[in-house]
């Protein structure tokens, strides 16, 4: 009886010993060398895993930086502090990226753009959009069913009277709302810019007026009275060229349909 137990213990011990030695040798000679900087950079990142940099998460972004494939100024939640920390650690110079935030290019709430019909389906913009082009009179405007607000990781989007608004102080520019909006009217704009054309309807003036009391009618007054080149016409829709700073703020007053607004 004792013999069997003893023998078993010996065998187990022997197998354990051999495996242990094999593993120890393997660990030494077959080790995968990982760049120690990846872990260090990862520690410097905020760990929000928001994906705003375009990578699958902070660790992925850290790897891309270490491999020299990514700029170090892409982290929005970390901001300037994070960037300078990484710059100091890597010993490289860095220039801050222009901080961006999402903006809903529509200002026609339920009072300005009336409902065409009563929609009582599921509360989701894509579903509402698929139902006869959405219930809003304007077929380009914000539907206000909050798909963007639900996908926002930092609760920067609120829905007020059938219109989504982004709080640019909170926005981390992750781009999730841009991707989910079925109307494609959320755009990334520089945070520094504070005057925008809040309309996305490419229709001609009379059609726009039928659909919404505050849509861009393509009158070109902003092009005429604004800074040179700051406002450009895209068909019947005025757009802001964000590379040119706006100094003449009187365009806000000049716009007859009041879709040029401060944000």
């Amino acid at each position, binding site marked *: 009886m004792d013999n069997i137990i003893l023998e078993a213990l010996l065998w187990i011990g022997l197998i354990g010993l051999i495996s242990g030695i094999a593993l120890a040798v393997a660990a030494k000679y077959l080790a995968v060398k990982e760049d120690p900087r990846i872990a260090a950079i990862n520690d410097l990142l905020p760990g929000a895993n928001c994906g705003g940099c375009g990578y699958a998460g902070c660790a992925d972004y850290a790897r891309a930086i270490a491999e020299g494939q990514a700029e170090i100024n892409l982290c929005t939640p970390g901001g300037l502090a994070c960037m300078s920390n990484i710059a100091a650690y890597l010993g490289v110079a860095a220039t801050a990226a222009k901080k961006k935030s999402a903006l809903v290019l529509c200002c026609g709430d339920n009072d300005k753009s009336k409902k065409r019909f009563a929609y*009582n389906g599921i509360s989701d913009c894509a579903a509402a959009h698929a139902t006869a082009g959405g219930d809003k009179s304007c077929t380009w405007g914000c539907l206000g069913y909050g798909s963007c607000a639900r996908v926002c990781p930092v609760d920067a989007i609120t829905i007020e009277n059938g219109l989504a608004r982004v709080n640019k102080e909170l926005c981390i520019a992750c781009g999730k709302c841009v991707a989910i909006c079925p109307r494609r009217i959320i755009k990334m704009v520089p945070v520094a810019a504070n005057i925008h054309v809040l309309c996305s309807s490419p229709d001609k003036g009379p059609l726009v007026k039928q659909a919404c009391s505050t849509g861009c009618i393509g009158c070109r007054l902003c092009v005429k009275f604004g800074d040179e080149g700051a406002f450009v016409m895209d068909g019947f829709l005025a757009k802001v060229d964000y590379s040119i700073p706006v100094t003449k703020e009187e365009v806000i007053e000049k716009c007859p349909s009041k879709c040029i607004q401060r944000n």
Partner: protein
Amino acid sequence: MQTIKSPYNFKGGIHPAYHKELASGSAIQGLPLPATLSVPMSQHLGAPAKPCVKAGDEVKKGTLIGAQAGFISAPVHAPVAGKVNAIAEVLTASGRPCQAVVIERVESDETDFMQPMTNWQSRSKDELLARISEAGIVGMGGAGFPTKIKLSPPMDKPIDTLILNGAECEPYLTSDHRMMVEHAREIRLGAEIARSILGAKTLRIAIEDNKPDAIAAVEKAFEGVAGDVALTVLRTSYPHGSEKQQIYAVTGREVPRGGLPMDTGCVVENVSTAFAISEAVVKGIPLIQRVITVTGDAVQNPANLMAPFGTSYQSLIDACGGFRGGRPAKVISGGPMMGFAVSSLATPTGKTASGVLLLSPGRVSQYTSQACISCGRCVDACPMRLIPSELSQFVEADDIEGAEGIALMDCIECGSCAFVCPAHRPLVQHMRRGKACIMAQRAAAKAKRD
């Protein structure tokens, strides 16, 4: 020809109140034509036709105004004589914007039809198919799939059975019903043409047992057709008009997952499509009009109207005596189960529009949907053997992959699940959203590959 009772019952299905009596007794009639017609370029599945006329052009009845644009597409012809006013954008019944040729009508008997084929039996298969394609014929049951493609299956999929779909399982609608009662002989001719193109030895006509007069008319008209021909009487159950369910009910064969009816050796054609085939081949008339049922409790005189495409719903309703009891709460293009509520009466008719349903406020409920109570009624009702409750919850949680994993794409959107749901969940809408997400993902993946 013999009449047989369908030996197979598909799983699930529902029995809604049919209300067919509103219009089933009303013979097909014409209507006072409106001054202008907006003929949509997208009246079929696939690529919209390309307008081949411009503002100012004069067209005759039957002139080609929209050219076929791609393999899965169909041409569009002028339904009336007149002058082209403009090429404008209209909202179709499904709510999608599409180009339309606006024709200002003039009183004229001039036509621009194709040459009639007096002796179609002697014509080759390709000639007949070319004629069907040229005439712009598409499936008139609702999907609008180009008939030419359906009638030319690949060589490795031999077709032995042609099924004529006269089930018309949608509540309220009676357009196919009236077609069978009044035009059974033309339907027979169209069926014979389609059958000879396919080389199908078996012909079945499927009609639900709630249409005894249609059954009698078809029995009489199909007397003496050679070969294996039978009228299959289906028990009344929704969705018997759906291809997959109908093939099973008639032949006992099941269309494999992701497959097409031709995988079972069957082709299903709507009876109205058969009528259109006979008109195009024997008389040379392209597909320019169809029977549309205007019905519901909010219209004065429910009727079946032979309306040219592009007629606005407003003109159809005017022809039926206008609204009964004030404004209707809902106007639906198609039937109540699979139709689309429209937001404007300027919506034009098209090749697939089989009905306009007007419902009074008393017949329309606004439900607040609640959480699933896991009662399983939708599972019992689903004719595709899916689990609608679980599917909808996957989609609601944005887990599209999970929904795809339990066969979301097999949903036929018949609405049986939503009809029986005691929590009033908008199940079909969830399915549609989920399916749209998957289609978008697949399109994106394909674009990436190319």
